[in-house]
């Protein structure tokens, strides 16, 4: 069987196992939350009987594992349940639109930071210890250290308040879609970009430096190839490969950053939905959001791993003779 295919298969199985365990943990975690769900639905003034009746009706008195399997069953058939806080509203109706928004935001950040980090990282590595490198390295160090909301705040102050170029909140007017209001994406995406740029550009730089100091680059130069050619045809391929892994490893910060940034800018995405859910103790919504974030995150990690295996000749083509 094709090696890449078998890797994909193995990772998918691994992913499913992880997700199953994760879903159990999420479910149990949320269930230990203090506070009675039925009580919250009916409000403080409800009578005891009404509360217990509702508990019965919702099956809240059933044993934990039964409730878990009921939930999982629902998830697999596409029913994520109803929000408690927003009475009667199905989660499906509000969640998916938000997921779409978040993905667009994440994509925008991606488009911004990936090319920028790679190009500047390579540049810094090639010009090691020269002024260009010092500037880029310092920029990377500084931006790496700024939590997303901090850079967001700076951006809002400069571009929003002082210069008034961009809106300082990123809400979509009711009735309109995201695509009519693309300017709200810019500042939030930029905030996320800062941190990711810092990280990835620094790693790219050290990867490039390591490659440029390797024996095979020395051999290429001593074969008479000129420096530019060596950088582009010999070095880059080897230096870019670890970057894929680095980006994959840092997806966690990207997703965390999404939550923070959406909250700061009021952007209608999955992250801000999760925040609302936690604040309002909306159990089914919390479970759905966390599950979805986990799924998307794990998928993205898996994709980067598979991409790496495909692009690395050492993994893709099995070592032949000894």
């Amino acid at each position, binding site marked *: 069987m094709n090696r890449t295919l078998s890797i994909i298969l193995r990772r998918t199985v*691994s992913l499913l196992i*992880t*997700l199953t*365990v*994760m879903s159990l*943990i999420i479910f149990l*975690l*949320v269930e*230990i*939350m*203090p506070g009675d769900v039925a009580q919250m639905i009916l409000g403080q003034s409800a009578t005891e009987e009404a509360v217990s009746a509702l508990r019965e009706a919702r099956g809240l008195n059933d044993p934990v594992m039964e409730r878990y399997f009921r939930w999982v069953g629902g998830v697999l058939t596409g029913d994520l349940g109803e929000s408690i806080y927003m009475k009667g509203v199905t989660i499906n109706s509000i969640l998916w639109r938000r997921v779409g928004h978040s993905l667009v935001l994440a994509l925008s950040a991606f488009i911004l930071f990936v090319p920028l980090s790679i190009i500047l990282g390579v540049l810094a590595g090639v010009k090691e210890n020269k002024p260009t490198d010092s500037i880029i390295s*310092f920029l990377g*160090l*500084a931006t*790496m*250290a*700024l*939590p*997303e*909301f*901090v850079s967001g*705040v*700076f951006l*809002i*102050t400069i571009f929003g*308040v002082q210069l008034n170029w961009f809106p*300082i909140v990123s809400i979509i007017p009711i009735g309109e879609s995201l695509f009519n209001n693309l300017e709200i994406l810019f500042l939030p995406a930029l905030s996320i970009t800062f941190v990711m740029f810092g990280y990835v550009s620094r790693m790219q730089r050290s990867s490039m430096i390591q490659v440029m100091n390797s024996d095979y680059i020395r051999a290429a130069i001593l074969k008479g190839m000129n420096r530019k050619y060596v950088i582009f045809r010999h070095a880059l391929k080897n230096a870019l490969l670890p970057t894929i892994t680095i980006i994959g490893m840092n*997806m*966690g*910060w990207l*997703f*965390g*950053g999404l*939550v*923070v940034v959406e*909250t*700061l800018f009021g952007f209608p995405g999955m992250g801000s939905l*999760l*925040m609302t859910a*936690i*604040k309002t103790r909306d159990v089914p919504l*919390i479970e759905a959001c*966390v599950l979805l*974030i*986990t799924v998307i*995150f*794990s998928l993205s*990690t898996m994709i980067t791993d598979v991409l790496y295996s495909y692009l690395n000749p050492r993994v893709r083509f099995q070592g032949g003779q000894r």
Partner: protein
Amino acid sequence: MKYFFYQMKKHPLSIVGISVLLLWILIAIFGPQLTSFTHTAMDAEHQMTAPGEFGHLFGTDSMGRDIMSRIIYGSRSILTVALMTSIFSTIIGILLGFTAGYFSGKIDAAFLRTMDILMAIPPLVLSMVVLGILGDSSILSLTLIVSIAFIPATARVSRGVLLTEKSQEYVSAARIRGESHFYIMFIEILPNTTGPIIVEATARFAYSIMMVASLGFLGVGLQPPTPDWGMMVIENKPIIAQAPWAVLFPALAIASLVIAISIFSDFVSKVLIHER
């Protein structure tokens, strides 16, 4: 040791970074003696005053509280939590990572699986959800939860370092002396791993600050009356147009502290790499 100062001369930036860090530590320890205002006193008459007026160096927020004092008091809690988190997660990381790497086989496989599962949730999301559900965010619970979120990373680094050392011949030499596993792990191997582990610990320190600040921003950090820098940002965001300083100063505090620690961490790694 001589190399320490040589590197400092070569990279003057590190002097700046280390000084800022020391400054913050001093502020955390001695700060409260420096301000005349407390961090909770609400002055209804002087709400949202600009920096410099009425003796408030950094201005006041929407409730008339002195921002500078709040930042100074906040520095204590954030530094304490971050320090404890980085130490705790590093130590547990060493214990787990070393055990997994040393014994290999099933133990290692189980470890890797567990870490994979823990890492399936982004650390911020995990901490946010757990703290939000628990409701109470004391210094202890913050430390504990953030440490747990960080342990997969520190354990991975420790395991990696251990695996590198395990293949060295001095470990084999210890084995044929019949040394116990504990002796080999902690008396033979551990002293040779301090470099990368210390660098990782300093980096963790920086991430902890970022994490705690972000959690505060999301409202699940330290609760009032303890001032939390992240919380200060979110509370005052609605008035950012009228009183930008209320948001900017806490943000600058966070930024300066994390950048200083990052520069320090970078510097430590340069010095320790040479030592090898």
